[in-house]
């Protein structure tokens, strides 16, 4: 493990604001690009989901093309696109998850998943699109089978976290589900045939986060993951395997870059993007080569840990907390939309 203290390089790229999408009337909690990058979904404390699209094909201007409402009665905390981009899952504090699909040119609610006892905080589709995971204030993670005809059946309920589960994220291979919690831990759930079992819990001194873990993101091939926390650190993990079971190891802990809680992380083609309560969006990249001379004095030393540096940051990206930062789909380059608090 390698600790990086915050030092801001002078050779930084910049993040430029492309457009502000206005319409939500309360805090925006989450935004997500569709897999093709042709739509952006956002959700809010105003109990609506908005879909944003280009005003005309090829246009650089985005506008709201649909408002999804009246299916859920409280804050909508999370939106997740199915891998084929046809379905949108929306998780609400009203304890439900709604599934939406375009039918005859209009967004329709096609299913409502009930079962959690309290606020649903996250939802994520497996890469196959056959499974949907949800997590809740009720400390549980649910795995749902997506059946033909918009039928959803609960395949498994995982207890294990001792406090609210804040997020769920699938490994790109689809056989490992990652959950993060208010109990400061990250849990890895793996497919054990007839059920999902907890293969590893990342927690405790020297390894785990020291406060609520808000989210996790994988690099493209799933060999590494990044996690972010209320402890203001970004941790990088090597996602190894041992006899088929996931076995993660802490690679690096980046502290000193964020001034307040880190609420969101995404790992895209341009690097690792974070959204923080200090109003900033930051992008971290891996240094191509280790610093000269590092480890040279001790021939027996382990190979140097990968070095990550802050490549770009946009302070005051929003007038208040950045709740979500998500990189664009590969086709869209590196746009970073971000949910935020409502304007003053």
């Amino acid at each position, binding site marked *: 493990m390698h600790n990086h203290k915050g030092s801001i390089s002078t050779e930084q790229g910049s993040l430029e604001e492309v457009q502000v999408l206005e319409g939500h009337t309360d*805090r925006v909690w989450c935004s997500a690009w569709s897999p093709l990058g042709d739509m952006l979904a956002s959700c809010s404390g105003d109990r609506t989901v908005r879909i944003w699209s280009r005003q005309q094909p090829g246009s650089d201007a985005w506008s709201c093309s649909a408002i999804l409402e009246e299916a859920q009665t409280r804050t909508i905390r999370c939106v997740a696109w199915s891998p084929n981009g046809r379905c949108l899952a929306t998780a609400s504090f009203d304890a439900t998850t709604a599934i939406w699909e375009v039918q005859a040119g209009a967004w329709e609610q096609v299913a409502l998943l009930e079962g959690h006892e309290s606020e649903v905080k996250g939802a994520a589709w497996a890469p196959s699109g056959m499974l949907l995971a949800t997590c809740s204030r009720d400390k549980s993670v649910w795995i749902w089978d997506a059946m033909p005809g918009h039928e959803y059946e609960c395949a498994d309920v995982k207890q294990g976290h001792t406090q609210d589960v804040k997020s769920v994220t699938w490994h790109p291979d689809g056989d490992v589900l990652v959950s993060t919690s*208010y109990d400061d831990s990250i849990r890895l759930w793996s497919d054990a045939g007839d059920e999902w079992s907890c293969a590893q819990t990342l927690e405790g001194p020297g390894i785990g986060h020291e406060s*609520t873990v808000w989210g996790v993101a994988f690099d493209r091939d799933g060999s590494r993951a990044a996690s972010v926390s209320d402890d203001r650190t970004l941790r990088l993990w090597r996602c190894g395997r041992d006899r088929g079971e996931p076995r993660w190891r802490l690679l690096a802990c980046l502290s000193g870059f964020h001034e307040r809680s880190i609420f969101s992380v995404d790992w895209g083609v341009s690097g690792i993007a974070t959204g923080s309560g200090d109003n900033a969006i930051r992008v971290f990249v891996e240094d191509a080569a280790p610093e000269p001379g590092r480890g040279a004095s001790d021939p027996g030393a382990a190979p140097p840990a990968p070095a990550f540096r802050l490549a770009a940051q946009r302070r005051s990206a929003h007038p*208040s907390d950045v709740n979500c930062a998500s990189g664009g789909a590969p086709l869209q380059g590196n746009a970073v939309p971000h949910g935020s608090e409502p304007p*003053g």
Partner: protein
Amino acid sequence: MDLINPSPILHARKSARRRLEPCEVVDESARQPIDVLEVFEHLRDVTDPEHPYTLEQLNVVSEEHIDVSDAESYVRVQFTPTVQHCSMATLIGLCLRVKLMRALPPRFKVDISVAPGAHATEDAVNKQLADKERVAAALENPNLLSMVDRCLASADA
């Protein structure tokens, strides 16, 4: 129901030193910077959830435990529950957060915490009060919101 603290010690209310000006001043450059006194004015008359007294009278909030920087847009408030095992601590903290959320411009980062050593489960209370997602969910609970509004009514007058 038994009271958690049947006989709280009362403290005299200090005389009001300054009238609150409306905070939605349009011209930011012409306004008075927000300071400790102003934040205290917002909080002093919040009613305790258990007793018919204000948080100032019970010495739950005081000027000494408020830290403000207008330039850096932050407010930190430490409060002292009247007893160490006070089960109302989270509710009091929530009232303080909501009051400041409504009274201050949204650029302010507000941190509410129990004064060190003032509560048996200090870390748990502080973590809960700092979790914006839990706070947002709590305020969508009509029962909890009406309890908060009841405590704030006296301070909003």
